[in-house]
């Protein structure tokens, strides 16, 4: 066991995972409590629907619970968790490729605007979300993991099973796409 393994093994998440593996439901609840927001936000920005984000986040935690007995803290817990999350996301895209998309409820897309500035903010948000959804999955996932989840290039490369150089390229392209979209409205 190297130093890095010892370090990760002593993290609170790793300890919680070990407790989950022993069947501790309180530890499982705490783990979900700690990680629900990052996972939900990742899926929300990837799919643009709060309901779908909840379904997929739940699928991630079910897989995490199943994997707990086999979990070894060889990397940061976030790397492990988002590796599962990305696999769940790719499976969802494959499933959607085979089945027609469910119509998104209007309330998922449009929130109520009380003033003109709120309306502009909503418009900006909608355009931003649409441009995120339109870009290739690897570009979007890379920029979300960097900016939303604040992971390092090395961690993103591990999650996405690629090189750091490729991750940087994807993030640069994602930024370029988003900037182009924002230039039209800002």
């Amino acid at each position, binding site marked *: 066991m190297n130093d890095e393994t010892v370090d990760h093994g002593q993290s609170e998440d790793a300890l919680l995972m070990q407790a989950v593996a022993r069947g501790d439901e309180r530890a499982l609840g705490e783990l979900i409590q700690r990680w*629900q927001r990052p996972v939900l936000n990742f899926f929300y920005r990837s799919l643009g629907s709060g309901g779908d984000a909840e379904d997929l*986040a*739940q699928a991630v935690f*079910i897989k995490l619970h199943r994997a707990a007995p086999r979990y070894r803290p060889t990397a940061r817990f976030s790397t492990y968790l988002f590796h599962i999350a990305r696999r769940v996301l790719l499976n969802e895209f494959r499933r959607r490729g085979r089945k027609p998309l469910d119509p998104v409820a209007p309330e998922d897309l449009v929130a109520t605007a009380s003033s003109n500035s709120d309306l502009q903010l909503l418009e900006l*948000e909608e355009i931003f979300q649409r441009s995120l959804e339109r870009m290739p999955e690897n570009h979007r996932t890379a920029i979300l993991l960097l900016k939303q989840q604040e992971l390092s290039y090395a961690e993103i490369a591990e999650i996405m099973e690629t090189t750091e150089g490729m991750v940087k390229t994807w993030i640069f392209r994602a930024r370029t796409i*988003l900037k182009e979209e924002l230039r039209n409205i800002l």
Partner: protein
Amino acid sequence: MTHDPQDLSAEDARIDELLQPRELGGDLFVAWTLDAIRQDTRRRRLRAFWTSTSVLAASVVLVFSLWPVKPGDNGLQMAGKTGPSTADAALYGEMLALEDLLLPADIFAQEENQQTLDFLIYLTQN
């Protein structure tokens, strides 16, 4: 189209701001997820139980089907190999007699009687 670097950094800042996590989830989501995990655990345990039960049942069937049969054991064995015992023949005769008593005469036809007789002759000869 050219852009002022100041504008570009403003766009970058806006993108970073828009990518910031929102206040999603809550206690309800945690409770809902824990419930889904409990159901998943129950389903997996049930599936494991049925799989082990099916394997056990298949093993029992396999063992009985491969069990070596010796001459004189109960049951009608394959003709030409071991043949039924006299106890089997006697039992079969009793069964036929009982059936004869229970069934009306017109149902137990002459042809069937002949077939039964042929069978009894076969049993006694073997």
